């Protein structure tokens, strides 16, 4: 990728421009694919990702990390860095779903079943986005859960269910999709009404400002949206 236009002055050597994107870890697969497309379209451009929890990324941005684009998994973390970003846009949504072990041995058919005290149910803790969503959902549906554990990461809910440690759990649809055959999803009434939104924004002090805007446009544009939907994300 050498020898093309030197772009917008972002510090590349030998004519390569690097775009620094901080993205929520749950976006890893989708964004890797998007980067391949984006680099193909922009010769001499290399996308370098920081994947981590959205709150870690927010901390890094506050700490002065050299970032051009921030894609968060929730609006709360985008709000934390509101002073450093320009004009966040929602580019994807996500909803919750019940997951069980493959084959659904406990014959769980809906949220009401999860209230059974004999079942080991795991959810996210209220402090993280998927936990907040779970609380809203159960309240709306009038169900009271007694979870065996309130995980701080969605991945840990997935692990517990796929390893058989828990009978059921509440995760995002995209996580369930990603896990493939390790878990089985159960239709969850009312889930569509509790939507989690993914905002994306360029940084005010982005080194490659134009390229950053191009990237945001690509993600919110048809190509990006297609990739995201393949991975199970909803449209904004």
């Amino acid at each position, binding site marked *: 990728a050498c020898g093309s236009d030197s772009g917008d002055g972002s510090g590349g050597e030998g004519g390569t421009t690097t775009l620094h994107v901080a993205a929520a870890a749950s976006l890893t697969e989708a964004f890797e694919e998007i980067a391949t497309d984006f680099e193909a379209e922009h010769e001499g451009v290399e996308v370098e990702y920081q994947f981590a929890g959205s709150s870690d990324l927010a901390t890094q941005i506050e700490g002065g990390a050299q970032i051009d684009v921030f894609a968060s998994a929730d609006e709360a973390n985008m709000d934390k860095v509101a002073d450093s970003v320009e004009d966040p846009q929602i580019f994807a949504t996500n909803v919750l779903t019940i997951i069980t072990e493959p084959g659904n041995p406990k014959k769980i058919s809906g949220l009401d079943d999860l209230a059974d005290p004999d079942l080991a149910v795991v959810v996210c803790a209220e*402090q993280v986005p998927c936990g907040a969503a779970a609380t809203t959902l159960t309240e709306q549906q009038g169900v009271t859960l007694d979870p065996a*554990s*309130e995980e*701080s*990461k969605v991945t*840990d809910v997935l*692990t517990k269910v796929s*390893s*058989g440690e828990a009978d059921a759990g509440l995760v995002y649809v995209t996580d369930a999709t990603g896990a493939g055959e390790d878990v089985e999803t159960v239709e969850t009434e009312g889930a569509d009404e509790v939507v989690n939104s993914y905002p994306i924004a360029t940084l005010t002090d982005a080194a490659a400002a134009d390229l950053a805007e191009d990237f945001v446009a690509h993600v919110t544009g048809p190509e990006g949206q297609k990739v995201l939907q393949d991975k199970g994300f909803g449209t904004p």
Partner: protein
Amino acid sequence: MRPPAWLWLPAAGAVLVVVVPLLGLLTSVDVGSLWPLLTSEASLDALLLSLRTAVVSTLLCILLGTPLAILLARGRWPGRSVLRALVLVPLVLPPVVGGLALLTTFGRRGLLGEHLVAAGVTISYTTTAVVLAQTFVALPFLVLSLEGAVRGLDPRQEQAAATLGASPWRRLTRVTLPLVGPGLLSGSVLAFARALGEFGATLTFAGSAQGRTRTLPLEIYLQREVDQDAAIALSLVLVVLATLIVGAVYARTTKGGPA
């Protein structure tokens, strides 16, 4: 024999590496928010749980790890280096993977867990699981520190004790262990600290239920999602506490010891 004075130069470097960031951290603590945070039920639960489990884990490490350290240092049996390498594994295993290992072993579907559940013993989601996770990650610290200390011991002291009629047990408790006191102490401190700070394995294996399995590091991690400053303040509590405990242990033990 005083150590050479210029050692202070690199030592000051070491102190700076540790102390300057702590100062930096202190400047960013919001003291006002400390009190309500500390007295919240969730924090207190987490604090107490952490202390209880870390103490139990450290005791377990001492109980199981001390014999192993002595055998590693003294014995000349085959497979010794293989075993030492194995004991080191939890050191380098990412804690989350350590948690997964425990899960595949003691979990409901695990190698042993299946039989345990059949026998009516459930470990998952209990405080026992926390202790198990902490012991798993902390054990190598005790074993390695202590092994180094035992290697440095003059075996003729134990021989003297033997001809004076001391049984192996008496030799161990009255001669070997007191003589490796400093090594055992620092090993225990390292193990306690590691247990107290344990996060990844606990989260993966024991989960995070308030008062039962949500230790202080887990609480801090959660708190951080909502309010980073509160999380830092809470961490400082953990730090002060650990430092006080460790400091007290050291002060008591080094007074009587050799100069």
